[in-house]
């Protein structure tokens, strides 16, 4: 199954369950409280996901390592390499 199909399947199952409870499709006569909680769930979950996403990406950007030492080390090694290659006969 492709990822797209997995998503479509998952959303369908959750969507069906939500519609079942919110609109009482099978005449289950669930308590009113269930319907009141279920009804705003899709929007609520989307908002929660949105906030989670922003927080996660924000955190990851903030903690993205800046490799200062790596750059410096590279600069030093470039000098060393150029000199060594020159000695070995490389003509740039």
């Amino acid at each position: 199954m492709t990822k797209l199909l997995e998503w479509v399947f998952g959303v369908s199952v959750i969507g069906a369950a939500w519609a079942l409870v919110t609109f009482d499709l099978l005449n289950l006569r669930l308590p009113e409280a269930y319907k009141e909680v279920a009804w705003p769930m899709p929007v609520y979950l989307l908002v929660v996901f949105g906030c989670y996403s922003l927080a996660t990406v924000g955190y990851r950007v903030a903690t993205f390592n800046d490799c200062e030492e790596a750059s410096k080390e590279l600069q030093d090694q470039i000098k060393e390499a150029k000199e060594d290659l020159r000695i070995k006969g490389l003509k740039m």
Partner: protein
Amino acid sequence: MASRKGSHQTRGNGDKYSVLLPTYNERENLPLIVWLLVKYFGESGYNYEIIVIDDGSPDGTLEVAEQLQKIYGEDKILLRPRARKLGLGTAYIHGIKHATGNYVFIMDADLSHHPKFIPEFIEKQREGGYDLVSGTRYRGDGGVYGWDLRRKLISRGANYVTQVLLRPGASDLTGSFRLYKKEVLESLVERCVSKGYVFQMEMIVRARQGNYTIGEVPISFVDRVYGESKLGGNEIVSFLKGLLTLFATT
């Protein structure tokens, strides 16, 4: 690990590592990356060869590669040039054809990937018997030098969307510093159809599909090119198109 650095004995267990270096206009960088590869492979004692796949660079990269061959030997530096700039996937296929190693490294020739990580890749691969080991900028002490806030945001944002949509089981999908078992690389490259960033992503996704095992090694990525070539709207759009294609087809 500390005791190994000083030892110069050859790891005589028959493993050989082929390093594929696709190049285009890398006249300045090629000698440097080769020097670093020779240094770190030499120090670690692993058997290796470097395969330079030059796509008809107008700046004379091939000529520099020939000089390097004279300096380091034709058994260590192999040249597999091509007439013009063709895709990365075909460069790998072309490069592997004459590779004598049983493991293959792929990496960038512009010094953004540092050969000092090569022993870590090899040790990681041996530790878990992984089919492929991927260098990650996003975990452990991996990271990037030379990116401003905008670039970091795009990178992390794109990676997050990719993780949500594809759940690939690897933290850095667009990275191109990797170690593959040779037969795994051959098998995967044949199946991949994307270009650019998405090609590297597709390789990982197909690896998961094929139930290949993936290990990770944190790496530092030193970007000296970003200042010259900003990541523009076009690249972002084509990335998203490629991502959605992978989402819908894998």
